[in-house]
């Protein structure tokens, strides 16, 4: 009991009496811990975040009618999409197409859901406004040039098949570099009405978060007459890119961690080396090697815990900074990081003290105390 009290007192003294040196050690350890906690947090969150970023490449799943059919009913499409977990679905844009005439020109008109298009195909470049009512439309850039229309103009469109017509205001000109450039794009409702295809669509593009295998598994497991297929170009490239980025960051993180650990350990080692005299004095007063080691280990553990806790907090803040500036979203809290960081910090400071102490213990008290 007495021994324990003495031990605690020694520990307390060691921490409180040597303030400037303690602060340096503490700073070194909490710095190391901060770097570890920031990098580990960012690394574990990166996969999910990067996957979301890569969804800017657009749809990775296409839903087409069964071979016998030319159309999908909106209800069928919804029942397919409902089988997906909500968190994984970025959006799905339905399309209906038909040939229309306006003036002397023949061109394709498409009907779609604009809120979904914005999610699925963020690369659409609209000059002007996205349509906000059934009476406004977008015109592809090549089509606009051909028709000689501009934002703000009104045009009359006639469906070629059933001769129905409508008048609508052009609110914006869209540019994608793809087929949309040659089309007139209106709301799904309006197009279904124009082509007399209530509740029907031709095709739908969906954007789903997940690697190629997940998407493929999902499309294979679907029990539906519809043809649901991954867009290989997109899903394969995504997997490849993600793999590259992840291994890049992994290696960089490992190097940073390794060298931070070594830097901190050597700094702490230098701090202990100067305490030879103290060790010699303790030995002269009758302490055996074991109790000296225990005392230093206790001190290092306290330092490690304090530094680790401070470092974790700083590191979590740092991780949020990285998350916000790179991905515009916070890095999620993972409790597993806390014990990992604390353990690393304690191990770091204990290892840093054990190596020099072993050397110091072989010291002859008389020689050292005399001062060489």
């Amino acid at each position, binding site marked *: 009991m007495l021994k324990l009290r003495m031990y605690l007192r020694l520990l307390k003294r060691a921490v409180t009496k040597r303030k400037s040196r303690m602060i340096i050690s503490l700073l070194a350890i909490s710095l190391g811990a901060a770097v570890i906690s920031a990098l580990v947090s960012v690394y574990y969150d990166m996969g999910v975040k990067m996957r979301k970023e890569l969804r800017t490449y657009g749809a990775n799943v296409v839903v087409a009618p069964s071979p016998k059919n030319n159309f999908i009913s909106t209800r069928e499409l919804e029942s397919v999409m409902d089988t997906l977990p909500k968190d994984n679905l970025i959006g799905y844009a339905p399309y209906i197409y038909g*040939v229309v005439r306006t003036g002397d*020109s023949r061109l394709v008109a498409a009907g779609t859901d604009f809120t979904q298009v914005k999610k699925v195909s963020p690369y659409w470049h609209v000059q002007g406004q996205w349509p906000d009512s059934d009476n406004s439309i977008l015109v592809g850039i090549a089509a606009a040039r051909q028709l000689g229309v501009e934002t703000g103009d009104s045009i009359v469109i006639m469906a070629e098949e059933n001769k129905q017509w409508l008048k609508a205001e052009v609110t914006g000109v869209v540019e994608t*570099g793809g087929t949309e450039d*040659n089309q007139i794009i209106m709301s799904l409702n309006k197009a279904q009405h124009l082509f007399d295809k209530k509740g029907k669509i031709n095709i739908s593009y969906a954007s789903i978060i997940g690697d190629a295998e997940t998407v493929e598994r999902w499309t294979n497991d679907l029990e539906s007459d519809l043809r649901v297929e*991954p867009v290989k170009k997109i899903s394969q490239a995504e997997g490849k890119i993600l793999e590259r980025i992840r291994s890049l960051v992994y290696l960089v993180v490992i190097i*940073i961690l390794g060298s931070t650990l070594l830097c901190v350990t050597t700094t702490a080692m*230098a701090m202990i080396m100067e305490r030879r005299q103290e060790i010699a004095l303790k030995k002269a007063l009758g302490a055996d090697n074991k109790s000296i080691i225990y005392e230093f280990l206790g001190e290092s553990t306290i330092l490690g815990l304090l530094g680790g806790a401070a470092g974790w907090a700083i590191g979590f803040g740092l991780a949020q900074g990285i998350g916000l500036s790179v*991905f515009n979203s916070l890095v999620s809290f993972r409790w597993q990081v806390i014990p990992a960081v604390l353990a690393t910090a304690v191990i770091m400071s204990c290892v840093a003290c054990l190596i020099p102490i072993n050397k110091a213990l072989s010291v002859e008290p008389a020689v050292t105390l005399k001062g060489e």
Partner: protein
Amino acid sequence: MFFRMLKKSFLQGKKNKLLAIVTIAFGATLASAVLSVSLDIGDKVNKELKSYGANLIVKPEMEALPLDMPGIKIDPLADQRYISEDELPNIKMIFWRNNILGFVPSLSTSVFIEEQEVKLTGTWFNKKMVIPTGETLRTGAKSIKTWWDVNGNWPADNNEPEALVQQKLAQRLNIANGDKFAVTLTTEQGRKTSQLKVVGIVSTGSNEGGIFVPLNWLQEQLGKDNQVQQVEVSALTTPENALARKAAMDLDSLSSDEFETWYCTAYVDSIAYQIEEAIPGVEAKQLRQVAQSEGKVLSKIQLLMALLTVVALISSILGISNLMTASVLERSKEIGLYKALGANNLPVIYLFMAEALVIGLIGGLVGYGIGFGFAQIIGKSVFSSTIAFKPLVIPIVLLLSTGVGILGTISAMGTIVKLQPAEVLHGR
């Protein structure tokens, strides 16, 4: 005398100095590895992003709008215009020729197989092309459409009737590698039937119902020698910035200086502009789906690496400065002795600074060497290519190691000045 003291200090305190050098070398290793990688990352990731396929499309300027409807049918264009195949090498002659990784021309038509309409596309698979500069370039679907999965062989780029058949169509027609089948083409002279030999089954992931044949064969069959409908171009580009957006809104609004900067930067739009200059009568457009996303993803990754680099630098700065402060504290006795022997504050500080400088230089150089090695390991294992040597990294790393070492000494200067020789020498 100063140098003698410096020399003695290194010779006698070997172990401590070695420890300091090792620590600084760790810090410098870290800084140089991460800096080398992140300075070279743009090009590397850009190349990886090419697996999304071409980012530019070149088409003849057209009068009528094509009536393409995705997933439904392809309108065979009656009054289609064409690009001359002879003009294609000019794409490799533009200002940014080295950024053009490759291109795939194509010519499509509808054919009938057993009364069913099927899309037949003539294209380059792995064509060897001679550029006017004398260089040769191998390009085609094989290198640009990396997601194509071919079971069998790729057809040769000549006028043999060899075909790649898409998976779904092969299943429907029940044909396999080595089989022959007849297709009916519509030419200007009327209908004609040709035999094709299946050399490979290809899975391209979407719209799996077509056939790919060598471009030259199809041109010969259709009587459209030297003509292609469109060219997909894969180019390394720079992410868009304010200037690129301004140019995209209205090219004429740029001042001549701005135009020059825009022209001489590898924006996707300026490459498109240069292709339009190189081949008369065509329209080069960016495929926004690939081009825009590429820019976004690239700048994200660069930012992420930049932040990791900053973390790495902070970590090595603090590591080095901690060590320096610690070493000054540790040597208070020595400082006390100098002072007792009559030294002013200044010479003592100089001595410590010179020491820091030497340690920083040695540690920095060693660290740079090791760090460059680490950067190569990263480059090899992630991108299977080496990381380029960037001279910029050396001064940054040396500045970091010596500068921070000296700063660490300065921060401990207060301690040196305050030291009372009697106190430290006495031991309390």
